[in-house]
């Protein structure tokens, strides 16, 4: 289209979602760099591959080989540009970019089971590792010895820690565990920081203190997330429920049972809206109303392609009845973008307060980038508050 000034204007159609298939195997975990031009992911083996965005394609620029077991968690610190990885070999490595190559530094976690998840703290001076040893290792750098040291949070954890998320104050840590509980711990390390100010979850925060423990949901807690302010925490558990707790004198919990398969990952996209995804292979929106302390289903976030409805012949109908005891013409083909469970969700732009784009990776080896504004306009009845 040419306007009166003779300048060619091109309208870029913003896609609601763009899918890229990296592998034929599951993507175990992923992390983005600060400007979202590079993604580090584990292709279901002992390595970490870093891909760089190249127009519409992705090219592999680095391969990080050091782990002796599957890499279960990757986190990329945006400011200090360091990557931390953890794996089933019970180790964690901090990688720093020296020139053109990533150099690893071993961190002794003192665990005797696999590490399952790792997260940098907001100030990037600590990171926490959840493991099957029924404890959380909080690691910080000791300048005198030029070495990463770790402290353990053990009580009252009774099973594997599956997921972690840090509170914006750099001290509180939410952990979801296989003992069916979501807890908020204090991970205050006096060697690297000042005493924290009081929060909605409490004011006394010695290391290892339990500030909040969930009740009411059964099932392993697969995903946990603090809201942008840190006053709310959401978790998804294996009994197909999602719950939000709001800190205060007494924590207020709201949970929602869903009719779908369990959700594996959850994140806040605004202070009141959550996006979660899991074994049903599509992301779902939930809305939290703090006045009623209630969580409600906001809508399915996958725009399916309009599949041509072909008419069924009488023979096909009879065959269906004979084979499947139903005359339904629904084929056993997933209409969603991801063809297998979504295992991780990450925010790309806008932070947890006003997320504009988020990314999902799954067991189908694919990565999808979802645009929130376009999704909102594409689906009627979808309101992100």
């Amino acid at each position, binding site marked *: 289209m040419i306007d009166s000034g003779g300048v060619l204007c091109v309208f870029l159609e913003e896609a609601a979602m763009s899918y890229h298939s990296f592998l034929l195997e599951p993507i175990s975990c992923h992390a983005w760099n600060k400007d979202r031009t590079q993604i580090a992911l584990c292709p279901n083996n002992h390595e970490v591959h870093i891909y760089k965005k190249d127009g519409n394609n992705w090219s592999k620029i680095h391969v990080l080989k050091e782990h002796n077991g599957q890499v279960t968690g990757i986190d990329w610190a945006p400011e200090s540009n360091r990557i931390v990885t953890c794996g089933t070999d019970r180790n964690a490595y901090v990688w720093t970019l020296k020139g053109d190559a990533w150099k690893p530094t071993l961190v002794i976690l003192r665990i005797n089971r696999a590490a399952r998840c790792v997260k940098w703290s907001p100030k990037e001076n600590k990171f926490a590792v959840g493991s099957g040893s029924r404890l959380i290792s909080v690691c910080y750098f000791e300048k005198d010895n030029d070495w990463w040291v770790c402290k353990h949070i053990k009580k009252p954890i009774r099973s594997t820690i599956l997921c972690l998320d840090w509170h914006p104050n750099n001290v509180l840590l939410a952990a979801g565990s296989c003992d069916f509980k979501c807890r908020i711990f204090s991970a205050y390390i006096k060697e690297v920081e000042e005493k924290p100010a009081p929060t909605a979850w409490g004011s006394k925060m010695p290391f290892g203190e339990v500030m909040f423990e969930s009740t009411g949901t*059964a099932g392993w807690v697969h995903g946990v997330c603090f809201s942008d302010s840190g006053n709310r925490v959401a978790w998804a558990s294996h009994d197909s429920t999602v719950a939000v707790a709001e800190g205060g004198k007494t924590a207020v919990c709201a949970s929602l*049972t869903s009719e*779908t398969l369990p959700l594996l990952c959850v994140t806040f996209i605004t202070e009141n809206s959550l996006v979660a995804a899991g074994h049903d292979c599509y992301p779902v929106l939930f809305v939290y109303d703090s006045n009623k302390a209630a969580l409600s289903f906001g809508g399915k976030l996958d725009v399916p392609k309009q599949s041509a409805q072909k008419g069924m012949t009488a023979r096909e109908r009879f065959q269906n009845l004979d084979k499947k005891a139903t005359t339904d013409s629904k084929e056993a083909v997933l209409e969603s973008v991801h063809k297998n469970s979504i295992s991780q969700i990450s925010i790309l732009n806008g932070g947890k307060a006003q997320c504009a784009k988020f990314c999902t990776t799954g067991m189908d080896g694919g990565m999808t980038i979802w645009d929130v504004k376009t999704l909102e306009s594409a689906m009627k009845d979808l309101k992100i508050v």
Partner: protein
Amino acid sequence: MSKNTVSDRFRKVDVDEYDENKFVDEEDGGENQLGPDEAEVDSLIRSYPFRNLMGALQAVLKNPPINAKNQNVKDRAEGLVLKVLSSFKASDIEKAVQSLDKTGVDLLMKYIYKGFEKPSDNSSAILLQWHEKALSAGGVGSIVRVLTARKTV
């Protein structure tokens, strides 16, 4: 062949019992859970002239013996639920399921699967009809909750 002269009693020891890190569920008070009231449910099934089956369904889903330690209480409750479910006509099942709320549907699903465990004459056929209607009301999520429940009816 060599004769086994060494004792093999060690093979009968349950090592998990001696594991000091063994996960033990929290004990919730189960003494007050007696299961649904038999008399109330019976009267609702038999009430004349119109059998109040919807009321019977609501009544039988009250007081589920989830934490009860006595197995008899649980068996009695299951038997009662089965009795109510069998009294429904096939065409009324859908309406009955619609009248339940979310927790009711989850509880119904728990009783249905409990009933599958010990099949009797015609119970499985009736339970399958109820299962189909409960599934369309509660979705696969309700089945997932039956599988993940640590304490069930």
